[in-house]
């Protein structure tokens, strides 16, 4: 009944599990701490494991691009370019960008859910390079983006898309899209650390993504737009991305749009990466 009697009884009645636990505790060595790249890749591995266990998350990356490609090709094809065949040459690189940017949004909601569940408490209490959990998550997302890009490209080829830059041009264009979406990912990580629910993260993301994608040169040539909209399209980083992707996939010189895309990406990482890590200190 007293404190002491229960203590001894507990220790005496310890099952063999305790002995094994003691052994496990004793046998542990301290490996040398891994570097930032290693921990980031480990978190990327975690993202891949999650895809393996929850393959449903590949649904959106395959269905979205198919839906967009078909919808916009046949919706605007006739009206804008006379024929769907002509329009798809113009549209497809842009629709790749649109598809991937739409999916980047899930980065934020996924992080919000993770934060609520408490896994990140453990990650944040580990002695590792702080951003690696987020970098790894974005690297894992790059796999999903690659699937989306591939699906769009294959469907495009079926519908008559014939890029002048060939396979090499496609790869460079895809790399640009991946770079930009990795950078944009930091906007969503920041939002999900700022906002309290995944619903609000989704809402605000939509609010950002809609003007970014539709207020760009993805669907139509901006020369037909009113001046104020043209001005917006001109400064919209998505337009630079689309212009350069269109160029490298079409096998022509991307001009200033290529360095502009890279500068924008770097700036997004610098600004929103910093903001994200500032919020991450006290994340909840």
């Amino acid at each position, binding site marked *: *009944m*007293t*404190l002491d009697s*229960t*203590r001894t009884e*507990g*220790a005496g009645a*310890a*099952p063999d*599990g*305790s*002995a*094994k*636990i*003691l*052994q*496990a*505790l*004793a*046998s*542990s060595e*301290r*490996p*040398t*701490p*891994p570097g930032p790249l*290693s*921990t980031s890749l*480990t978190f990327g*591995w*975690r993202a891949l*494991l*999650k895809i393996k*266990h*929850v393959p449903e998350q590949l649904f959106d990356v395959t269905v979205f691009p198919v839906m967009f490609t078909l919808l916009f090709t046949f919706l605007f094809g006739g009206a804008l370019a006379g024929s769907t065949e002509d329009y798809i040459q113009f549209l497809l690189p842009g629709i790749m960008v649109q598809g991937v940017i739409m999916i980047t949004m899930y980065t934020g909601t996924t992080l919000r859910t*993770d934060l609520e*569940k*408490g*896994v990140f*408490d*453990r*990650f*944040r*209490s*580990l*002695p*590792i390079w702080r951003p690696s959990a987020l970098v790894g998550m974005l690297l894992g997302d790059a796999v999903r983006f690659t699937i989306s890009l591939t699906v769009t490209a294959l469907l495009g080829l079926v519908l008559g898309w014939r890029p002048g830059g060939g396979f090499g041009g496609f790869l460079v264009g895809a790399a640009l899209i991946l770079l930009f979406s990795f950078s944009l990912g930091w906007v969503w990580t920041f939002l999900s650390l700022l906002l309290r629910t995944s619903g609000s993260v989704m809402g605000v993301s939509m609010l950002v993504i809609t003007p970014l994608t539709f207020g760009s040169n993805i669907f139509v040539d901006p020369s037909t737009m009113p001046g104020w909209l043209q001005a917006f399209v001109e400064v919209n980083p998505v337009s630079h991305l689309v212009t350069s992707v269109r160029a490298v996939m079409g096998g022509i010189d991307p001009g200033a749009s290529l360095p502009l895309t890279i500068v924008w990406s770097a700036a997004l990482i610098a600004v929103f990466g910093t903001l994200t890590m500032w919020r991450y*200190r*006290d*994340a*909840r």
Partner: protein
Amino acid sequence: MNDLAIETHGLVKVFGSNRAVDGVDLAIPRGGVHGFLGPNGAGKTTTIRVLATLARPDGGTARVLGRDVVTEANEVRQRVSLTGQFASVDEDLTGRENLRLIGRLFGHRGAAARRRADELLDAFGLGDAGDRQVKKYSGGMRRRIDIAASIVVTPELLFLDEPTTGLDPRSRNEVWDIVRAMVSSGTTVLLTTQYLDEADQLADRISVIDRGKVIAEGTSTELKASVGSGSLHVRVMDRVDREAARAILERELAVDVREEADPNALSANVDEQGRVTRALSALDDARIPLAQFSLGQPTLDEVFLSLTGHPAEETTETEVDAA
């Protein structure tokens, strides 16, 4: 001075206008289990989160294993581990994958991480469940995988936030055994709980926390002593014997014996245990059959209630400071 596992001075954490941690001073030595006892919303989790470098304090200082939680956060992280109140493992992954993940993050190579995961799964009785997603685990299994994940690399200090809330008695005992095993291997454990008997069973010393403040601190015995002496409960088999039993008890115990609402029951506060034995044999000599005869320490429930000033009417304005 650096033999303290945890040392805080005036620690404060504020959420808006809510002072979740409101000036906590702690000096917890290394080794053994230190209990944080308090009701919902007392600030236990918030305190632990600050100590584990997950939240930044808004005031005061905190040193964990001699390192400042703000300026030497990474040093602290190398030495402590946290098992949060809510599962701090990835529910989508299997138990084995979770342990391998943590192992790799600590720098174990692929094969070593796998070996360590297997070893821990086996030690925690999760060998068979290792390849199942954690979301399909029972509550007890979850707790175990969570604790296992905390000791992939043995920490010097382990924070366990309500490790047994929601567990059945058997799983609870398993977790208690794990905690005892860790303590005997030299790890210091800081454990929060709402269960008084858990603190009683495991903790060497207990800090009672209420509304962001430490309202009492000491061993469980000291805390209990603060409420008063032991309490004796007697139930006679036949209610007509009660009056006689009462007379005998008052004579033998030399204290007031109260008649309870239950017509068979008597109770008394006793100071000397020796007298209780004598009282029992005196009742036996008088041939008064008993249904119940029990002597217990006041429960931590009573302690807690008296400290927080809720129902219990024991007249103690105790500030048990056994430091």
